[in-house]
């Protein structure tokens, strides 16, 4: 195995790991948003996990990009990692990777500067995750033949299914939630019902 091949293998391997980690990060992000408890973990552990695994994913991405650039079998300029469609090799599919990475960089930077940013701005950029992941996914499938058959394909499909399930869960949970404008009326009705039920119970007890 030449060193060139080693870079190429490293790039593909770290790419796969990054995809897996990003799938996990996405699901953890939704878990935080829905205020779901993970058994045995305090809430700050869930937020920390989301943050730390995202940093881990970015580290793998850095190596993924670096090894792809260093590999001499195909020529990929380093700029192509962040400037979409600037590479000679597989211009479009690699370009998608750059798009996804750009969005992720924006998310990471805004999250590092959270305290100083407007809440709305931070959230708007963070929501581009919904775009970044699918773009990364398509980049993964088409950039190299590896993920188009065999166990790698099954892995990719599994990630996609997990993510789709998570998004459906998120949408369903949001739909079940009382819309903000209706919350006051809903709570008033609920408080009234509880009181009437309690009163009915007491009347029953008294009549026995």
């Amino acid at each position, binding site marked *: 195995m030449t060193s060139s091949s080693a870079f190429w293998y490293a790039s593909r391997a770290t790419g796969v790991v990054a995809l897996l980690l990003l799938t996990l990060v996405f699901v953890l992000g939704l878990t935080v948003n829905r205020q779901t408890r993970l058994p045995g973990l305090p809430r700050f552990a869930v937020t920390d996990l989301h943050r730390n695994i995202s940093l881990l994913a970015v580290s793998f991405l850095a190596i993924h990009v670096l090894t792809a650039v260093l590999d001499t079998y195909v020529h990929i300029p380093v700029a192509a990692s962040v400037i979409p469609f600037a590479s000679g090799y597989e211009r479009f599919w690699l370009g998608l990777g750059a798009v996804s990475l750009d969005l992720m960089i924006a998310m990471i930077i805004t999250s590092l500067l959270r305290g100083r940013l407007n809440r709305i701005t931070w959230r708007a950029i963070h929501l581009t995750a919904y775009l970044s992941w699918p773009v990364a996914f398509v980049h993964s499938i088409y950039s190299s033949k590896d993920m188009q058959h065999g166990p790698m394909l099954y892995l990719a499909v599994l990630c996609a299914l997990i993510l789709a399930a998570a998004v459906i869960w998120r949408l369903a949970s949001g739909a079940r939630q009382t819309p903000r404008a209706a919350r006051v009326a809903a709570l008033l009705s609920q*408080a009234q019902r509880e009181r009437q039920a309690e009163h009915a119970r*007491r009347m029953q007890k008294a009549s026995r």
Partner: protein
Amino acid sequence: MTAANPQAVTEPVPAASGAARQAAGLPRLLPPAPGVREDLEAHLARFGHLPRAGLSPTSLIDAAEQAGLTGRGGAAFPVYRKLAVVRRARGRKVIVANGAESEPASRKDAALLWHAPHLVLDGLQMAAEAIGADQVYLYLHRGQEGKIARALHERTAAGLDRRGIVVTQAPPRFLAGQETALVNRIEGGPALPTFASPLVPERGIAVHNVETLAHLALIARYGPDWFRQVGTAAEPGTMLATIHRGGRPEVIEAPLGSQLSTLLDHSGAAQAVLIGGYHGTWLPASAVDENLTLDNRTLKRHGAALGAGVLAVLPGQVCGLREAARVTRYLAAESAGQCGPCLNGLPRIAAAMAELAGSRPRRKTREDTERWAGLVTGRGACHHPDGTVRFVRSALTVFADELRRHATGRCSAPSSQPFLPLPDRMPMSEEDWI
């Protein structure tokens, strides 16, 4: 502004006008004869023109300071200070006349806009000049702009106003007149309170109650010393108040420091008085003695405040707890629902009040109410929960005897007719009460 002679600051007026006579006496804002609507001609005949020559922007602010004018929208904040802060602010400057009288028991702003719209509009123009306003707004509930349209039309035809006024509609919600909610609405958003960091005046926005502006229009004409001729030294001038005694509510204009017992025509049949409005305080009828006067300094000693200027006398045959519970339910329904404590606490407090107003409430309910009251105070973006708690706590104190009666399944009041006004939009059905 000269000291003793009110006429010195007015431009020459026709000799037939009663401006000088009016200046000395009362009422100041409301018309001297009932039911008389003021059009522009009548307005100018009664008050004369606004002084233009020699009136620099800062002199109005100085006049407001010397006059000791405080806001008539509830907060009683010194008017000159708000104007000065807005004047100093950088960037775009906005002034808003707040005529969105969201307090169901208050009618004073509506009465003022009906009887003396030109005073309000005069004050608005003067204040706009004083701060260097780029935009001028008039904030009204739906159905009110028709009344004001005629006055605006007259002024345009007469070429009176230097600045155009944008009339903005307030939704029929209790919090629509809240300062940050108003600003939110004016800037194109919903009339919901916000939690923005710089205070509204520091952002270059002056929000003044319409009554405040009317007083300002008179101070501009007759001077601060005239303004101080009535009222107390600390709280000079007159104020409008809405009085509920049963039957139609009455809007009166009285000097600050007036005896409440005289104003309320206090007869023995009353059991309690609500002072301020639905964010105000209940006092027992026994507290309305010759020492209880219409000013914040005195009322503060009783834990009360002028607020929206509502004075409601509860007759003996009405159950105070029941009235308080009705209003609390309204206040809970009017929560913006943006802040967890208010959203969760107010409905529970309302349900508890309904139980306490019913027969044989649980002892736990009284304790729960107090706990929730403590939990919601100071934890919202606005003072809606705090005002509601003030209303509830004072009711439970003043109607303590009634609470004891209800605990044994009795109620002293034969009548179940509602007394305090609430918007029709929220019908109170019998199922709400057990």
